[in-house]
């Protein structure tokens, strides 16, 4: 199998498939780069893992920030 066939969860097409707007995609890339919460990614993860989401959006955002507060920033 070729490397280019490799699919990662974060790259997988969402329900909108290829119709997903490039702007939405760009926004998701920026979110990841700056380390912002991405509830859509969490929902996709739950779908891929085959279980219902256990966190609502508010709980997800709250837990995300809590985990982020422990990370170090460099000099």
């Amino acid at each position: 199998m070729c490397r280019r066939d490799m699919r990662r969860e974060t790259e997988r097409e969402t329900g909108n498939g290829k119709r997903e707007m490039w702007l939405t995609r760009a926004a998701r890339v920026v979110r990841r780069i700056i380390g912002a919460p991405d509830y859509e990614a969490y929902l996709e993860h739950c779908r891929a893992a085959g279980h219902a989401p256990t966190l609502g959006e508010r709980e997800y955002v709250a837990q995300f920030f809590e985990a982020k507060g422990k990370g170090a920033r460099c000099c």
Partner: protein
Amino acid sequence: MQPLASVLLWSGISVLGAAAFGVLALSRGETVNAAWLLTAAVCTYAVGYRFYSRFLATRVFGLDDRRATPAERFNNGRDYVPTNKWVLYGHHFAAIAGAGPLVGPVLAAQFGFLPGTLWLVIGVVLGGAVQDFVMLFCSLRRDGKSLGQMAKEEVNPAAGATAMLAVLFIMIILLAVLALIVVNALKASPWGLFTIACTIPIALLMGWWMKRWRPGRVGEASAVGAVLLLGALVAGGWVADQPHIAPLFTHSATALTWMMMGYGFIASVLPVWMLLCPRDYLSTFLKITTILVLAVAILVILPPLRMPALTPFASLGEGPVFAGKLFPFAFITIACGAISGFHSLVASGTTPKMIARESDARLIAYGGMLMESFVGVMAMIAACTLDPGVYFAMNTTPAALAQASQVLGQAGFVVTPDFMRELAARMGETTLLARSGGAPSLAVGIAQIFAGATSVLGGGGRTLDALWYHFAIMFEALFILTTIDTGTRVGRFMLQEIAGHVWPRFAETSWYPGVIASSGAVVAGWGYFLYQGVVDPLGGINSLWPLFGISNQLLAAVALCVGTTILVKMGRARFAWVTALPLVWLVTITMTAGWQKVFSADPRLGFLAHAASLAGSTNPAAARLIFNDRLNTFVALLFMTVVTVLIITSLREWWLVLSHRKTAIVHEAPYVQTGYATGD
């Protein structure tokens, strides 16, 4: 690519890089264009990445894409998330690059542009990027464990405790020196202080927006924040011109010190979504955008370097910016950009939890560090485009300038007071003299480059100088304050964990007395060193920056010790030189620098000699200065002792394993086959 074409391409890049180095090294007396410096750097990075990082990835580490990464195995859609390698590259770079690669090269420009550039370019390829790569690799194979945990498991428990203690002390010195840079940039600067002060309500608004009002809408909140930030920048110029409002934002360095400490304490106690995260988002946007724009601007105008390749201070060791000769102090002054121990905390923190496949680590860790080095080279270019007279007048106190006046005069590094007044007025400041710390002189350099680029592009040109200057100050101060927020918080967690061994309640992060006491202790720690730097007659940077450099490089030595131990235990001892050689170099420079800072007979260099020179002085501050010298001595000796202990324990471990007296047990996570499609 066809093999022949590949050979020709890489031969061409190597020859071009060598030629650029030749031009830089052989130029004497004439002005060199920044293009040569950029060419030498980029060609070296390309060759290093193509060949050396590939060797590390395939032969030394044996990265295996069939092995599931922690992101895949523990995927929770939150912190363990498999992420596209280019996206993670951006995320990792934003986490590792801060003020260090901008400030260090500016200070090291005291020796001329050549020594710092060589160290940045060669140091990163053989040292800094290797350290980041080996740490990421080790953490990746250990479920994303931290440096301290790996030291404990792979070397021994004492090494783990030593590493943790080292990180805490280094954090305190780092926060003090970064805060000092901000204080020196904002003292008596109503424009600068107003803009930076505005970032606090802007961040609070953003936090409320994305947590309470529209949860998770970071994009909207960031866009609003960015617009308000630019508004605050422009409004700062108006504030500075208002005789009734400007005094509210005009403060002495001492007053700013107390404000910084108050800010650091509050920011570390508040919930992260309220202030820390929104500020972090703003600073990341600004950081990446400004760095990209700076790179384009430098390429557009290709400025000439007005600083010579080597200044007399390289061999004399009596520099007014900081004391000490080129060896070892150029290598201490530039830590971030060449090799930075702090990266080992990021490479064993969030990044390993987001890697989708092992081979991505090459681009993210090695490539990310190359980019940080490139930022350092750009900072060096920005500083060296300044007139050397302006550079020295800005980066030293009048006392230090007077001490070095003879050498400065002989070298022609002089500037008239009228010229400095005119420059300050152009930058919208009352004075630019004695703004040590590197940030203001870098801001002047960046302002000149941006103003030059806008005039090339047909823009307003020089009239924008003041705006660009304060934009650059805001850019630097914003991410220094982010480091202070997060650093104080991380220091607080570490202190709570340590104290929790004695009194378990203290380790509860939700127990407010413990939170307040530990935050207060961390702020008091860096605040003391900051205050000491602010009232230091020689400007503080002179003593604090070398201490920071030594501590940061020693943390890198700790990381390389752990990395070498793991390679030895993995049965890759024949490749252990990849981490052992940078380790030997780091230990040599840090121990030499530490020794000289403590024991040199020159009062400008040695802490103890400086204290002795003050004995019997009528100076009312003498007692305090003597105490500070002794405290700095203690800190330097503590760092040196900690690393010596770690090296001895590591050496013992290597010897036991290599002589088969001990079975090598590697604490890698068990092999799990990836569920993703793989193959080459």
